[in-house]
């Protein structure tokens, strides 16, 4: 081919596209480096420093891995992680099976409650159960009046209960989706070969949905071990890695937080080990779902039907308890921290009078973070999906990191990195927004990528072919098609952003407090009315987002996992 071909304009176009997307790519890499890699490297680095002398040492790790105080916390963390995961599976898997395979009355209610439980503020479960089953809880008192002493809710049992009820929706939603996509023929073939329904569930169905169950379970595990609010509130003297990392950090405040950092690294290691274990297991089992010949739901009759419904509704009630308790408590009249025993809106009045800036902060920070997440995810997903270069796929993998880095750890990294000129962000609103941004960016990227994968590249190529520059083609053609998905992704990010606690708790100052932080301190101060009012506001905001997601996304609950 000669050089002077009539395709010169086309070539110029391609060059333009190269430079535009390369600039975008460079920017994305910069963001990821500064906000993710740098803080985490800092965390890693500080873990090897002697807090006194600043010399290189392995002592921090040795101490964390040998001293009883830390080892105990590590064991506790693994215990509640495994317990929460197991509980989530024991609730989620049967629920998913019943809802996917039988005509359960009120299926929509079940999935709505599951989603609401998923998006409700992280620790309201803990303190709602304290309000019910704590030393002075409503149910405890009722039973005490009858002469029955209930076992204590504080400690391991309470934490596992709260985690199970908080994280079962992941297992439920993922498993239900998988169960509905299994080709009906497998179970029929099993029956045809003489396998009873119960046996066929364990021999065929469960192995086939195992990838989905394990994804949900691992998510429950990782979130359980990273959770800070629940053990802090309901744990009493029960220490987990995230609570001691937080305590250690606040104790080491001012000095070098070497021990807190060493603990953090252990947490990251556990999460990563869990994720890799799951990937390893899944590598060998990938079964394509089927889009035809899907299972048919069976009607429920008799005793079995009654049992199934009883189980489903019990789960719904237990999952809804925190929300109901929070709302109920929020409309009890108070006098200072004391409930007067009547209904009233004094808690909301206090929020309005004393904490308007806290509510304002929450919405402002969440909105800002979501705007950034949305914009960044649109571009990053484009890079990852459309330009399948090695660099883009590395970027995609690096973005998996925030999934396994607990909020407390990320916050320590930020505090270590952005603490002096030229980028001294400590105490600013900016650092809060940035940390929420980087922690939730992967979720945004994932949801936008999945939509983008469904849009054929030819649509955009057609626009370019008709003379539109690539950037414009992307904005004018692809983005509008992606819009519903982008809004769904934004709503989901908003929910997680406005409920963020574990990372912001380390970074806030008086003027940048948010609702979750205020709820946390109110609970510790025994200001349950105030906490309830704030939680209700969070819950309602999250609920509105859920409603929008339900309206806009095709697979409703599917959008949340």
């Amino acid at each position, binding site marked *: 081919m000669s050089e002077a071909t009539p395709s010169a304009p086309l070539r110029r176009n391609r060059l333009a596209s190269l430079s535009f997307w390369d600039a975008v790519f460079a920017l994305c890499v910069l963001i990821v480096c500064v906000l993710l890699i740098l803080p985490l490297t800092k965390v890693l680095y500080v873990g090897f420093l002697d807090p006194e002398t600043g010399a290189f040492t392995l002592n921090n790790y040795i101490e964390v891995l040998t001293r009883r105080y830390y080892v105990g916390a590590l064991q506790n963390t693994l215990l509640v992680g495994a317990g929460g995961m197991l509980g989530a599976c024991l609730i989620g898997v049967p629920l998913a099976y019943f809802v996917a395979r039988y005509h359960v009355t009120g299926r929509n209610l079940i999935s709505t409650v599951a989603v609401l439980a998923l998006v409700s503020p992280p620790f309201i479960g803990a303190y709602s159960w304290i309000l019910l089953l704590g030393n002075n809880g409503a149910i405890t008192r009722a039973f005490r009046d009858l002469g029955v002493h209930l076992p204590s809710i504080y400690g391991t049992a309470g934490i596992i209960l709260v985690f199970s009820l908080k994280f079962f929706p992941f297992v439920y939603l993922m498993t239900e989706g998988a169960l509905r996509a299994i*080709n009906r*023929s*497998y179970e*029929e*073939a*099993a*029956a*045809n*070969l*003489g*396998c*009873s*329904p119960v*046996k*066929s569930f364990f*021999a*065929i169905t469960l*192995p*086939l949905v*195992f990838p989905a169950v394990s994804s949900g379970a691992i998510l429950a595990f990782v979130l359980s071990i990273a959770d800070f609010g629940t053990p802090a509130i309901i744990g009493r003297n029960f220490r987990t890695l995230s609570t001691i990392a937080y305590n250690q950090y606040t104790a080491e405040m001012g000095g070098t937080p070497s021990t807190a950092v060493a603990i953090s690294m252990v947490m990251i290691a556990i999460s990563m080990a869990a994720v890799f274990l799951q990937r390893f297991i899944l590598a060998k*089992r990938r*079964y394509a779902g*089927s889009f035809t*010949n899907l299972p048919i739901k069976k009607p429920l009759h008799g005793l079995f039907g009654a049992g199934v419904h009883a189980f489903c509704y019990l789960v719904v009630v237990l999952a809804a308890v925190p929300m109901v308790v929070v709302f109920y408590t929020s409309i009890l009249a108070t006098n200072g921290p004391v409930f007067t025993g009547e209904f009233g809106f004094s808690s909301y009045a206090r929020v309005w009078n004393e904490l308007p800036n806290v509510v304002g902060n929450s919405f402002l920070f969440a909105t800002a973070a979501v705007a950034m997440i949305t914009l960044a995810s649109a571009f990053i997903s484009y890079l990852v999906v459309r330009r399948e270069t090695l660099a883009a796929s590395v970027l995609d993998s690096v973005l998996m990191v925030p999934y396994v880095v607990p909020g407390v750890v990320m916050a320590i990294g930020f505090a270590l990195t952005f603490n002096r000129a030229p980028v001294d962000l400590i105490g600013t609103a900016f650092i809060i927004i940035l940390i929420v941004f980087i922690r939730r960016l992967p979720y945004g990227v994932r949801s936008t990528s999945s939509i983008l994968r469904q849009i054929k590249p030819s649509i955009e190529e057609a626009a370019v072919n008709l003379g539109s520059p690539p950037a414009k083609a992307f904005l004018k053609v692809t983005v509008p098609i992606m819009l519903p998905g982008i809004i769904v992704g934004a709503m989901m990010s908003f929910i997680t952003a406005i409920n963020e606690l574990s990372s912001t708790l380390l970074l806030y100052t008086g003027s940048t407090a948010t609702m979750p932080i205020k709820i946390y301190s109110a609970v510790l101060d025994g200001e349950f009315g105030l906490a309830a009012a704030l939680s209700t506001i969070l819950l309602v905001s999250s609920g509105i987002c859920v409603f929008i997601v339900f309206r806009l996304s095709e697979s409703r609950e599917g959008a949340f996992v």
Partner: protein
Amino acid sequence: MARVKIENLKKSYSDFVALKNISLDIASGAFFTLLGPSGCGKTTLLRAIAGFHRQDSGSIQVDGESIGDKPAHLRDVGMVFQDYAVFPHLSVFDNVAFGLRQRKVSSAELKQRVGEILEIVQLAPLADRMPHQLSGGQQQRVGLARALVIRPKVLLMDEPLSNLDAKLRVELRRDIRALQQEFGITTIYVTHDQEEALAISDEVCVMYGGVAQQVASPWDIYSRAGNLFVASFVGSNNRLKGALANGRLAIGEQASERPFNLPDGPVIATIRPEKVRLGRDAGEDAFSLKGTVRHAMFIGRELEVSIATQDGVVDALVKPEARAVALKPGDPIEASLPVADLMLYDDAENGRLLA
């Protein structure tokens, strides 16, 4: 070996009746094929026999024992699925062993039986493979082995070959037929491929609209189609309006020489294209229809000539001789329809064959 008897089987999906009063009597060891267009109820019937859904009424008997109310896993009727349904998480060996394990067969016997059947379906070297490492044809063999190894009384197959390419289909259907005869197992086979049905069956049941239209041997189905639906569904057929008057068949202005022992009235006459001849044969009792060539297509072994006559379009399938190959659209031509090859049917929506 088992005789399958189905009586007055009815099955509806909410308000849509998928099976209307199906009665079949299938001889022990027979290869029995359900043939019909998409949506006629073949799968519905098969699934009722397998026990995957319950019939509204009617009975299903195997060897005199009524199985219509048994749960699917106790029925002992093997099934080969259209989409293979080879369990994706089990190896070939474990797939085939699955049914034997449910029957608590001792491990020594299990090994031996699975080994034998894998040998027969030529999968022995692949016993340790996982399903995703198999081709479609191999997966279907696993499905077949898995169903056969439990030695069911009846074997059901729902379009087992429809997802395979044409060549493999022909190969596998031979294998299936050979295995079926070797095992002597009563087999109910579903297909909408008529060539397949005619090629491997002892008996064919043509279904349409949830009704068994005709049950007969492949040759009878083809040469003596029981009604107009079967006549036009199985193979191609020409249809002409005619009438019986004074014991003779009349088409257009011509009348047959041969007498018919049938009451007078309008009839539909059908004739297979391969029986139609071009030109006039003197002395034979045949209808001779003048017309013009619509098109002539050489399709390999034969030449397909479509002729527009006053009495309708007549298609002929003739040997590709030089004279015939030279035909062009618009050429005048005469089609000759031997009376002996005509089948007569009631002039009705789905008219019955008149004796």
